[in-house]
């Protein structure tokens, strides 16, 4: 089998392969590194970091649904300072692009976080989470408002030279409008999608199964929705897309690339099988070789629509 070029380019960000680990689904890399060799994957996106540490939502935070799960973690994180002091040193040990995901409640806070972190050499790019459905003060209004997303993009762009990715909310009618404004305001790429808003109730207690009432739906159940969002962006906006949502196998990675993803992120699957990302990279390479492909990046937006 001939050697396949597995590298992909997400705007200015070059990755050794398209398989990244999604924010909030791999912590800061410590635990997962026992199962998947971080040196073999395309990139790792850290759990959303905020300026100050966040305790997050009270339990119950998780409930399983058909083919998916709802979570309302509430952006639990150690805060910028502790992240720099104790999490980055661990990630430094690996030869893997670290993409730092940032969450905030105000534009100002997004900017401050980025300003502090942009000097960290280990961080190769930023992913701005404008779309977390579980934080009441922030998140939602940004993610569902084109103007706010544009503003956040522009202001953060002004304080970092590093590749800037905006992670979009799927809970909107036309996600491509958001991708457009990101491009206009100087963003380098978009990630699509974050979780869908959902809920589940206990019929005996009549209470929500998760304490926060609403949670974010992830897993294979949402894959068709995520695919449609990526395709919408890909057909309407000239900006690199990182495809996310329900990826469970190498076949799903190919499918996401076909509809327009330059790279992908794996979320929920890590909980079920933390060794999957490493295996998927190998399987993708085999698939490309068997199909006589020389570059995996040729798959991106290779859809055939009559």
């Amino acid at each position, binding site marked *: 089998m001939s050697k396949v070029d597995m590298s992909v380019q997400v705007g200015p960000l070059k990755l050794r392969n398209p398989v990244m680990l999604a924010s909030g689904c791999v912590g800061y890399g410590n635990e997962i590194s026992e199962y998947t060799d971080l040196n073999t994957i395309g990139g790792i996106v850290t759990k959303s970091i905020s300026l100050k540490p966040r305790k997050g939502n009270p339990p119950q935070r998780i409930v399983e649904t058909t083919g998916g799960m709802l979570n309302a973690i509430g952006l639990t994180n150690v805060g910028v300072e502790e992240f720099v002091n104790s999490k980055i040193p661990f990630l430094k040990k690996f030869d893997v692009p670290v993409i730092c995901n940032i969450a905030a409640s105000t534009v100002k806070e997004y900017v401050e976080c980025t300003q502090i972190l942009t000097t960290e050499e280990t961080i190769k790019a930023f992913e701005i989470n404008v779309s977390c459905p579980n934080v009441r003060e922030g998140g939602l209004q940004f993610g569902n408002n084109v103007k706010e997303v544009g503003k956040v993009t522009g202001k953060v762009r002004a304080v970092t030279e590093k590749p800037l990715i905006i992670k979009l909310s799927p809970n909107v009618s036309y996600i491509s409008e958001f991708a457009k404004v990101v491009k206009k305001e100087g963003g380098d790429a978009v990630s699509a999608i974050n979780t869908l808003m959902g809920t589940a109730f206990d019929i005996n207690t009549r209470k929500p199964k998760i304490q926060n009432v609403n949670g974010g739906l992830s897993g294979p159940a949402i894959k068709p929705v995520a695919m449609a969002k990526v395709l919408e962006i890909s057909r309407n906006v000239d900006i690199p897309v990182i495809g996310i949502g329900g990826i469970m196998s190498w076949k799903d990675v190919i499918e996401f690339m076909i509809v327009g993803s330059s790279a992908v992120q794996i979320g929920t699957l*890590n909980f079920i099988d933390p060794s999957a990302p490493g295996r998927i990279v190998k399987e993708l390479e085999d698939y490309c070789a068997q199909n006589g492909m020389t570059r995996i990046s040729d798959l991106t937006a290779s859809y055939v629509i009559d």
Partner: protein
Amino acid sequence: MFIINAQISEKIELGHNIFLFKMFCPEIASSAEPGQFLNLRINETYFPLLRRPFSVCDISGDHFYILFSPFGEGTKQLAKKSVGDNIDTHGPLGKGFNYKGEYETAVIVAGGLGSAPFPFVTRKINNKKDIISFVGGRSQKDVITYGMENVSTSTDDGSEGFEGTVVDLLETKVDELKSKNVKVFGCGPTPMLKALQSFCSKNNFDCEISTECAMACGFGICQGCPIEQTEYKDQYLLVCSDGPVFNAKDVVL
């Protein structure tokens, strides 16, 4: 920690709808500690999607045991498995019971399926310390004393042993317990653990409890399983990786 196939080598029905599976898996059998748990992938489909946690019930040679009752979708499917079937197992996970310490008498307190971790605990402590076990259930069929020593039982409806909760039963023995240097090990439904927590606090007994929480990952990457700390309120602990066993003093149930 392994992600590995464990093969069902024996399927025992302990009582009404209570199953004990003997699973062949030398890797886990040789590394598991009492109170740790295993996260089982029920099948290869996405129904259920997530793994399901089960305590390491016991270890013997190259085998581990799990004990469970068909309850929701996952446990119902598990109960239908046959000898020879492989189950994708993640573990051993979490922090188990600190059973070594200075105490003289281990007081084991189990409610319902909370008996699951104690055969292994009992095996480890036996012959080194005294053991007194208290096992409760709603009714006779819910009382699981498998693998335990020196057992007194209680049932909510009085159909077996003491009539009342297992902590009520414990209250009746408080003087006897006070006369010894005891350490209490508890596992069961949260209301029972709460009662046990305050009983031990009141009587100044050192107590470890195995807690439960809905989990997505089982090994610390999803932040799905928080538990409130008694002292340091700014941050939760994680049931899956800081626990599931905690000192009763350290957590708020």
